[in-house]
């Protein structure tokens, strides 16, 4: 549905984004993650036609944005980082204006009422936008993006300013919309992205660092699989017994307290050693108090990815300096 191909945007000598490529299939929810200044908003601004690109290509449903902007823009609803609201208008009048602007061919009054209900702003429809709280303003911004039910929704940090209840409702709403819409959604809240999105693209320093399915992401980057066990018994004997199990590569003692040892076991990826651990420990009469898989948390993953991109950037700069000499 959305195809971004070698997209670059430069401001003079500064490359805001470089060779960004990813695709979003119909009905997919893509999460755009990255530190501040990474280039997420720039990418979204180019996809929606607000900013021009320096090079590359963006197509929405096969239509190239720079060649046929009108047709492409008809398919997109955009909520920028700061919701674009005319603060002197009432909510209903503003949505009426956006309805006319987008040339939506639906019964106006009913459609706006429906959208307001979906966004949870029916109770403030007559209020002037200037007088709304941040959370409500954000919701009005979301409502204007949703008007006409465009096939593609691009949302830049849509949950900023919402209270915890509103955030939960919003996530449910995105998930339900995701079935009928293609959504790109950027956030700093990693748990939110992993909960809602089918795929995650991490952007750092203007470049794509990773593009994976959410479920595959942690697995790909955590290296060899690990299990943490909490066993009652002497540490030395327990570790020794564990190391003898087939497939175990390494054992690390995490803690030892009151006869309980916590150990991290790294094992080969094609073997499930949990049954063997049980059998061996039971034979030696060392009760297993707790056993669980370790998955690299998204925070650790994010830090790892963005740190590695910064390191490679620094190395390139150093090499460049040496090169000049």
């Amino acid at each position, binding site marked *: 549905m959305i195809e971004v191909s070698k997209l670059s945007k430069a401001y003079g000598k500064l490359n805001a984004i470089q060779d960004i490529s990813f695709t979003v299939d119909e009905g997919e929810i893509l999460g755009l993650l990255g530190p501040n200044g990474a280039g997420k908003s720039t990418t979204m601004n180019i996809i929606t*036609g607000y900013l021009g690109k320096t090079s590359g290509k963006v197509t929405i449903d096969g239509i190239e944005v*720079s060649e046929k*902007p009108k047709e492409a823009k008809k398919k997109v609803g955009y909520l920028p980082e700061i*919701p674009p*609201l005319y603060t*002197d208008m009432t909510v209903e009048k503003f949505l009426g204006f956006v309805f*006319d*602007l*987008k040339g939506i061919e639906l019964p106006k009054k009913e459609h706006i009422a429906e959208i307001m209900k979906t966004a949870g702003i029916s109770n403030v429809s007559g209020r002037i936008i200037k007088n709304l709280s941040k959370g409500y303003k954000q919701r009005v911004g979301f409502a*204007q993006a949703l008007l006409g039910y465009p096939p593609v929704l691009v949302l830049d940090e849509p949950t900023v300013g919402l209270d915890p209840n509103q955030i939960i409702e919003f996530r449910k709403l995105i998930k339900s919309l995701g079935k009928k819409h293609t959504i790109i959604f950027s956030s700093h809240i990693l748990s939110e992205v992993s909960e809602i999105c089918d795929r995650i693209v991490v952007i750092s320093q203007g470049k794509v660092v990773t593009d994976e399915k959410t479920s595959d992401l942690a697995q790909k980057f955590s290296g060899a699989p690990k299990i943490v066990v909490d066993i009652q018994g002497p540490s030395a004997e327990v570790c020794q017994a564990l190391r003898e199990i087939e497939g175990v590569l390494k054992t690390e003692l995490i803690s030892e307290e009151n006869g309980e040892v916590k150990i991290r076991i790294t094992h080969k990826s094609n073997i499930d050693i949990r049954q063997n651990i049980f059998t061996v420990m039971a034979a030696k009469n060392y009760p297993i108090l707790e056993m669980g898989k370790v998955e690299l948390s998204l925070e650790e993953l994010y830090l790892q990815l963005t740190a590695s991109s910064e390191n490679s950037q620094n190395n390139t700069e150093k090499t460049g300096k040496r090169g000049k000499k």
Partner: protein
Amino acid sequence: MAAVLKRELGSYFRSPIGYTIIAIFYFFANIFFNMYCLSYNSGNMSSVFKNTFLIVLFIIPIITMKTFSEDKKLGTDKLLLTSPVSTGRIVFGKYLSAMIIYVICLLIFVVHGLIIEYFSTAQWSVILCTVLGLALMGSAIISIGLFISSLTESQVIACVGTLGVGFFLYIMDVLANLANNAIVSYVVGVFTFIQRFSNFTLGIFNPADVLYFLSVTCLFLWFTMKSFGKNSRS
């Protein structure tokens, strides 16, 4: 375009600005009408028009200052530029809304004509020709004001910039005389706003003057389109 026009026109009247602009214009136009016509029992409105010209130079920057600057500041330029409406239509919608406010201001002169007509005979050809001249010249300055507004986020800078241009146009002829240079005089003679407007006040309908003001309008609307849409171009 109709959506933009409706919204812009509405916004002039959702705040005091629209009412204030029209009220101030009517106030001064009426004072001049009283001073130069009613108190002398004269139907000659030339002095009224001459003085009102200066008010126009003040009023137009106030009409145009928020047209694009406000969108840049609020972030609604993103809404406009990501909608399936061309930049040209957006600019034209804003231009029309400013012109409508301006023309509402100019209608007071028709009222003056009707008052004169009640007591004697109004020189309708002069009055209507002058109103047309004011409308055309105003259209050109409005398009310049729109362009300047599209260059900045600050309404104040937009206002002051347009005021500056307006005054330059006002004194351009005087400066040209001081320069005492044939080339300068010729160039100023072509681009003059004052001289061309003066023709209208004498009841002279010169198609060249009409074409000139319309051309300036089109040129600056085109500049505004380019300026407003500059970031969207690859």
